[in-house]
């Protein structure tokens, strides 16, 4: 074995060890003392694998400013806090007047949407002597009310207090009313509330959320201290809790609507991981079996290189902090199939050289050199496709483009370093004749001739 081959072998081993450490972290460094830990995969999973929701909200007012959207973002953050979502992301797309919210691992996306997207404008409306049933809705201009039955009555919305006057809100269970929301008004508002209730005993102070009547209580006595209670209209404690959350976080400065909702339930996410892992194992085994059957010893060496290739991909994904999506896994599996291509091209060239009567060493050398241009050029087209997808695709598709790109680059790297070293190593041993046997694969007619 030549010293250059030793050098290359050392290089390959070093790369593999480094990749293994990056991808699976078998050794943990705490300070200067390394400790061993069981190797495992450290990959970010996309929403389609771990389950979760991606929601796109759009401001309903065209003139919504960046400040408005930032206000919306702050409020949405507070509301999400109450949902107990780990690592949500909220992104403002100010030009499109959109806010993109990602909620990984959320169990109840329905509740999330209604909680996050509600404008939650709370109003206390003086409806005089009219009591309105829950569910009655004010028109947008605040001039008439449509009753649940369908008929509408003219009734101007005379707003006395709003959610902005609230200091705090808490859900509770009352013996008589069931689930309720207790609220506390801010100092100045509390004083106004006291004056107002003193002067309007016997009249109805209707509580309205986003133009919809929650309840329409009558003022029985002066309310001091700014304490009040919203009751009725809640079917369970959860609803009362959600309203309390909304009231605490305040109303959105601009009403928002859900424009896009992509939700993958936790069940489907887990299912996707399991199935795609299974597909990955089967794909790898099938490819290896094919290579062994067709190319025998060189096929075995290429399969070893494939193992290195998979570790390299994991390391690259982990190192780049990329997010793995379901199409991304498909991209890796696809690239496993395509990775073999470089080896196939090289082996076929070596085969030709051998059949021309070259020695094994010369055939290996020329085979690799002749294959280089073809491999680089042919992979360029896949990289072009991946680049466009990376640029224009979103979420899962971008994940596919990422793994495909990493896969193509890694496959070229392994074919030209790892497989080469393996083949050179074996060429210097007793097994060399078995390498030469490649010339006989794929039809023996000519070899015999």
């Amino acid at each position, binding site marked *: 074995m030549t010293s250059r081959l030793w050098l290359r072998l050392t290089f390959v081993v070093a790369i593999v060890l480094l990749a293994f450490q990056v991808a699976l972290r078998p050794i943990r460094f705490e300070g200067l003392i390394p400790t061993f830990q069981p190797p495992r995969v450290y990959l970010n999973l996309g929403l389609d694998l771990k389950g979760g929701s991606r929601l796109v909200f759009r401001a309903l007012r065209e003139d919504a400013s960046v400040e408005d959207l930032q206000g919306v973002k702050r409020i949405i953050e507070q509301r999400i806090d109450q949902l107990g979502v780990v690592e949500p992301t909220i992104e403002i797309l100010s030009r499109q007047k959109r806010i993109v919210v990602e909620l990984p691992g959320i169990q109840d996306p329905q509740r999330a949407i209604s909680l996050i997207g509600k404008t939650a404008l709370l109003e206390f409306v003086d409806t005089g002597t009219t009591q309105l049933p829950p569910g009655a809705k004010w028109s947008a201009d605040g001039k008439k009310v449509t009753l649940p039955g369908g008929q509408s009555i003219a009734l101007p919305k005379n707003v006395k207090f709003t959610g902005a006057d609230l200091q705090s809100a808490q859900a509770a269970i009352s013996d008589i009313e069931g689930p309720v929301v207790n609220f506390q008004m801010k100092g100045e508002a509390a004083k106004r509330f006291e004056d107002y209730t003193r002067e309007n005993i016997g009249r109805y102070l209707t509580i309205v959320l986003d133009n919809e009547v929650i309840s329409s209580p009558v003022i029985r006595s002066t309310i001091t201290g700014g304490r009040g209670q919203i009751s009725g209209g809640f079917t369970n404690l959860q609803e009362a809790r959600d309203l309390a959350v909304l009231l605490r976080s305040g109303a959105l400065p601009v009403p928002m609507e859900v*424009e896009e909702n992509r939700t993958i339930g936790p069940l489907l996410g887990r299912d996707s991981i399991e199935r795609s892992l299974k597909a990955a194992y089967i794909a790898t085994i099938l490819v290896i079996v094919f290579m062994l059957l067709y190319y025998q010893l060189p096929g075995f060496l290429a399969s070893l290189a494939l193992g290195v290739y998979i570790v390299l991909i994991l390391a690259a994904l982990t190192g780049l902090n990329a997010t793995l999506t379901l199409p991304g896994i498909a991209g890796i599996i696809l690239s496993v*199939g395509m990775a073999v*291509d470089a080896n196939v091209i090289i082996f076929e060239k070596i085969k030709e050289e051998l059949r021309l009567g070259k020695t094994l060493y010369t055939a290996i050398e020329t085979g690799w050199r002749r294959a280089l241009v073809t491999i680089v050029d042919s992979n360029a087209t896949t990289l072009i*496709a991946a680049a466009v997808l990376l640029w224009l695709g979103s979420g899962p598709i971008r994940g596919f483009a990422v793994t495909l790109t990493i896969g193509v680059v890694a496959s070229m790297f392994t074919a030209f370093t790892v497989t080469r070293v393996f083949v050179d190593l074996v060429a210097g041993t007793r097994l060399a004749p078995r390498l030469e046997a490649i010339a006989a694969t794929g039809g023996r007619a000519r070899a015999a001739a």
Partner: protein
Amino acid sequence: MQQPSWDIIGNRKWGYLFSLLVIIPGIIALAVNGLNLGVDFTGGTFLDLRLEKDFTTGQVRQVLDAFGLGRSIVQKGAGHELSIRTRFLSEEERVKVLQALRGKFGEVTVLRADEVGPRIGRELRTIAILGVVIGLLLQVVYISYRFKSVRFAVAADLALLHDILVVLAAFSLSRKEVNSSFVAVLLTVVGYSINDTIVLFDRIRENLSLRAREPFDRLVNRSILEALVRSLNTSITTILAIGAVYFFGGPTIRDFAFGIMVGIATGTYSSIFTASPILVDWHLWSLRQKAQPAEARLPLVEPSPVPAASPSGGAGTTRPQRKHKKRRK
């Protein structure tokens, strides 16, 4: 070499015919039915649910009818799974629909929900078209740069068009849903198809520079046979891999894997049975146009060959004759 001496070029009309047998029904299907666009592009709501009890699509449709959604697409999957595709539902509407389903069939688990507003649907459609157009343009530019010869480039472009039509035909005929990931399918397939054509055309050019005297159609046929093993082996390993995704990867990714599988098969097919025969027919056509055959062949050899074409230095002078004799026996 080792391959049987199939006369692929001599029988190229069968290759064309087979392509047309797929593409013409595909174009008709495209013209008549179009593509089955998913909610990504049309806007709308797609719900993938799991119900507690057994059900029939008719029962589900009854429930939907109450909301004026009777025309939704309702499908029953394995294990009490239900998928509904319908117009874009407001949050309120969706809650009510789910409540109604719960009322009738017990607990309903949402496996997946895709809701796309009409505006986003339009945007996604624009981005998809833009992506395909830009992707194809870049590939065509790359092909022109790579082959430098008009004939090779146009033949490769036609093979690319062939593969796109076949994949579109496959999706149109099978009524599989076309959504955002279809763009990824198309571009990947196109990349793969050109990859395959490049490897084959490089072989033709390599042989052209070594064996200028061999009739062009024979030379192409020989090149195809020489490149065949690589081409098939790569397709086989890739199809084995993506086939595993198709069969075991679950329903979410199945259509995606289907598209890539079809594309890889046609990508391999088109290099051999479309791109190369076009090259030959173009050559024969220009021979008939010109009196002097030798001149007509010149432009094929003339573009400076890629480095791969003159690989092993001195070996080139002895090699062609050896191979030549064996083959001609």
